[in-house]
């Protein structure tokens, strides 16, 4: 007679090592696990609450400058190194892991207007109010050596900005005109002008490296082609643009930080309409920097706050401020996309987390799974009023808060006026202009 026995495969219930978790057989029968939506809703609510509870983005303040920090630059090869230039002509190199200044250079007389690192990370360039461009070695001088620049170029006019090419030994400065320099020469290999006003900043495109963008004080943004040595197109906005930043993942997208409290994301090929208008600041936006993943950017404003915007959203997802932080002049997003640095008027550089409630350090796999799940839950239930209320809640300093209220009233009044005008005039004589088109005055070919 054949005896049939019940048998189980040990693989199903024996764990491989002692450290493994015990296997728990699960029955996924939906009748055994009722109330999916309410349970997940509660989980999402809890996750949102915890996110707000753990939102402590401020990490460190690097103090040492004796004047307002005017420019920041990140090291292309080392995550821990950051360079900053101050308004008194001092350049400092910081180590972020130690949170200490590792080198101080008195680079210029007057402001350090711009600072940029070479793509290989061995040297960096500074421009100052003293009409000089200086190249410095990244490593400090040996014992007994004096702190001296590698090269110094004396120009005819003041340089207001500098950026280095992403691949070639060339850099661009701006001032009266945009100059492109070969590192080996003391005169620019080409200089491009379009208009007569002074140019605030110049930025190389990180992907199509021959492209440059600059913004001038006559309210325009000009694009250049370095290889053909010609400007390409000019867009005039209704207020001055302070700086631009190219998207590191999308070659034709750049964002402009404008004096009219807004940021404009443009597609380079269609300048007449910005892709997105980002509005949340209540004062002039002074600097902008993209996250290396190209999904978000951070903006620094005169209203003593920095904000993080998703590229495809017109509203910010995060605002950082502290009581001591004054007008933020420069900002940069670190190359690992986890941290944000900002330099402000009151001589400090601050280090923030890019995601306020993110846990730093190594995560266990279960922890990571839980984090992913919570993130997904928050995303899934983000439209629910209770959850949105908690997730969107931010504390703001009174000045910013009241400014926001004021501006809302102003905007509402303007809108109402326009509506009334439209109502009381001949139909079609007061056309509806979309928010995106409103701010672009003209595109010059």
């Amino acid at each position: 007679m054949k005896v049939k026995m019940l048998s189980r495969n040990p693989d199903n219930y024996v764990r491989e090592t002692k450290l493994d978790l015990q296997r728990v057989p699960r029955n996924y029968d939906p009748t055994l696990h009722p109330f999916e939506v309410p349970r997940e809703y509660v989980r999402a609510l809890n996750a949102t609450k915890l996110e707000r509870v753990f939102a402590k983005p401020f990490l460190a303040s690097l103090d040492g400058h004796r004047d307002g920090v005017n420019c920041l630059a990140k090291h292309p090869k080392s995550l821990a190194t950051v360079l900053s230039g101050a308004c008194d002509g001092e350049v400092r190199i910081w180590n972020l892991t130690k949170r200490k200044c590792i080198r101080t250079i008195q680079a210029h007389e007057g402001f350090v207007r711009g600072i940029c690192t070479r793509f290989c990370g061995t040297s960096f360039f500074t421009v100052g109010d003293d009409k000089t461009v200086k190249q410095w070695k990244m490593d400090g001088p040996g014992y007994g050596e004096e702190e001296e620049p590698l090269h110094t170029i004396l120009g005819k006019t003041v340089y207001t900005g500098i950026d280095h090419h992403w691949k070639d030994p060339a850099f661009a400065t701006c001032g009266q005109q945009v100059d492109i320099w070969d590192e080996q020469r003391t005169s620019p290999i080409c200089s491009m002008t379009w208009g007569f006003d002074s140019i605030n900043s110049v930025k190389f495109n990180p992907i199509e490296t021959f492209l440059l963008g600059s913004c001038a004080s006559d309210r325009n943004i000009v694009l250049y082609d370095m290889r053909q040595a010609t400007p390409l197109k000019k867009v005039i906005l209704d207020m001055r643009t302070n700086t631009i930043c190219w998207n590191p993942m999308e070659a034709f997208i750049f964002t402009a930080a404008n004096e009219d409290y807004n940021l404009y994301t443009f597609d380079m090929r269609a300048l007449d309409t910005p892709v997105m208008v980002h509005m949340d600041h209540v004062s002039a936006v002074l600097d902008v920097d993209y996250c290396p993943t190209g999904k978000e950017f951070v903006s620094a404003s005169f209203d003593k706050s920095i904000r993080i915007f998703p590229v495809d959203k017109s509203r910010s997802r995060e605002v950082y401020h502290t009581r001591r932080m004054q007008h933020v002049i420069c900002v940069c997003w670190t190359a690992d996309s986890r941290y944000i640095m900002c330099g402000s008027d009151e001589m400090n550089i601050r280090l923030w987390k890019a995601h306020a409630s993110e846990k730093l350090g190594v995560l266990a796999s279960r922890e990571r799974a839980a984090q992913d799940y919570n993130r997904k839950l928050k995303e899934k239930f983000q439209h629910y009023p209770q959850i949105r209320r908690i997730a969107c809640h931010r504390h703001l300093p009174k000045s910013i808060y009241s400014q926001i209220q004021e501006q809302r009233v102003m905007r509402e009044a303007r809108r109402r006026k326009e509506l009334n005008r439209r109502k009381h005039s001949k139909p079609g004589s007061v056309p509806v202009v979309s928010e995106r088109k409103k701010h672009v005055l003209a595109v010059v070919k």
Partner: protein
Amino acid sequence: MQAAEMNAIRAAEGLLALSQQEELVDLPNYPMSASEDEGDSDGERKHQKLLESIGSLNGKNRWKLAERSEASLKVSEFNVSSEGSGEKLVLSDLLEPVKTSSSLAAVKKQLSRVKSKKAVELPLDKEEVERIHREIAFNKTSQTLSKWDPIVLKNRQAEQLVFPLEKEQSDSVPIEHVFSSWKPRTPLEQEVFNLLHKNKQPVTDPLLTPMEKASLKAMSLEEAKMRRAELQRARALQSYYEARARREKKIKSKKYHKIVKKGKAKKALKEFEQLWKVNPVAAIKELEKIEKARMMERMSLKHQNSGKWAKSKAIMAKYDLEARQAMQEQLAKNKELTQKLQVVSESEEEEKGAEEEELLVPDVVNEVQMFADGSNPWMLRNCNSDAKGEIQKPEQPPEPVVQEFSESEEDERPGAEEEILLQEFEERRSLRKRSELNQNAEPVGSQETKDSGTQEVLSELKALTQKLKQKKHQSSKQKVSSGGTILQVQREECALEEEEPLLLQRPERAQTLEDLEDIAHEKYSQNKELPRPVLKGDRTERNPNNQTDAPKGKKKKEQMIDLQNLLTTKSPSVKSLAVPTAIEELEDEEEKHQKQIIKEAFAGDDVIKDFLKEKKEAVEASKPKDVDLTLPGWGEWGGIGLKPSAKKRRRFLIKAPKGPPRKDKNLPNVIINEKRNIHAAAHQVRVLPYPFTHHKQFERTIQTPIGSTWNTQRAFQKLTTPRVVTKPGHIIKPIKAEDVGYSSSSRSDLSVTQSNPK
């Protein structure tokens, strides 16, 4: 002004065309092309000069052409040089030689065209030119940028993006390189190495030794396929036979086994015959085997009724018929096995046959004598058959057969019998199955059908048993030929076939009228069909069955008719709604009738009253309630049966304020529920969120859970993959053309810039 603009446009077009021509080149080099002209050959220069001079002939030229001077002042007859002499070239001089030859007609034409042409337009002003340059450059740049479109789109829509984008190159050296550099040193190592290399063990990726490769090559694909198919067939056959053997093994019937055994023996005999004809040597060997078996049997006491079992049986034999039979079987077997096999030549056959008869007869006699039971049917049959054999022997043609199986007729008959029996078994099995099916179908099928089904089965069983009895009779009498039985079996089969659809219909439940009708039709047709076997009239058992079936069918029909009658009574009223008829009286009557019907149907419930009641309740429920704060026993006597006084109650009753008027106050037929659950509303989404186009879509996404409580681990992981993954401590560099498979321009931007300065 307009003319100037036109000129500018024309020039721009020209430049655009130029740029389009140069699209394939990395950069336009029109600034360079002008300077390169200097390096051209002499002839070309002269040609140029000629053209210039021709151009200068036109008096309307506004500016002077720059004249080029040559180093030498010599004027040869081959060169056209206007310098030195100061004289001007006249077109007529040039044309003089042309007049003579007709082959230069083309040149002439060109010259005439040149003559007719007006002056070259003014060059554009600097700003215009720059604008054009900018436009061209911009177009070019946007073209180069548009190659990023698909990548950007892909990245924007990607489910997951992992940064940094570039793949890290592994530093590990492939293992074969490590192997090749390694060399054995110790003797043991060398030995192992030699062994390994003798087999030519492969080190690189396709893990096949040269031998394996050779073997692979040796067998072509088709061959391999054929072989595989063969193997498959063999395997299938094997499994089939195994299953069959198992099934047969399970059959407990002794009779069946006996028959099978006999069949086998017969088959063996036939085979032997064939073997004898084809290959006598092998046959002799076979014979020897049989002989050996005989010897073994003679040596052993196995079938001699001397064992323990046989002795016990012998004791019982007196009273038990079976025991007796068993003993006899044993002996018969012994006899069979010990019988001498004789291969007989054709001439000797008769004598041997006679000898055998002599041999055979005494044995039988002995056996009979031993048990002294003449009434034993087994023995009787044996005797009979033997006798038959004796009778028929002389008539048979001589055959080289083993004598034991010489009774051919005897063998044939059981063969036929065996087939019939096998078929019977088959039938029984199918019957059993059907009865099982019936039992399964019972709860589904209607009562009547079930009854008829069971009856059918019963009748079938009866028929079979009867038939078996008949068969026994036949076998004893040996009157009916095998053909007849086969016919009967066939008939049986056809009867079975006719019954099958009835059985199949059962599991379906009739729910609608149409279904019922269908069933009725089928029933009717079956009833028509059924008489056929009755007409043939070979089975009387079926008749009562059919008769029972037929009245039932009629009953069904009657029922159906009743239903239809009902329908017909209703149908006119339905029609009256659709088709207005002229005769109103009829209509009225019908209406009355209908109303009556409705009244009868809904006699119990008054809908309007119910609704009013419901509304009243709703209104009451929505009204704010008075609060009674009276405490019994305070300020007066208390106890069981005592109620607080009306005065007190009035005093402590807080009247609720009148609520706002109900929205359905003036709508008698409507109840508007004004109660909205505020607590639930706080957690509900009020407007459809942006990416969704329909509320159902949104609801669906909310209703699909993503947690591990409801999903398997794998699904959970898939559902919760983050959009962007970054590695901590890794620098994310901007996207590069090489990362996404594009080739970036080999020339550096700087060198290009230096090559065309401004």
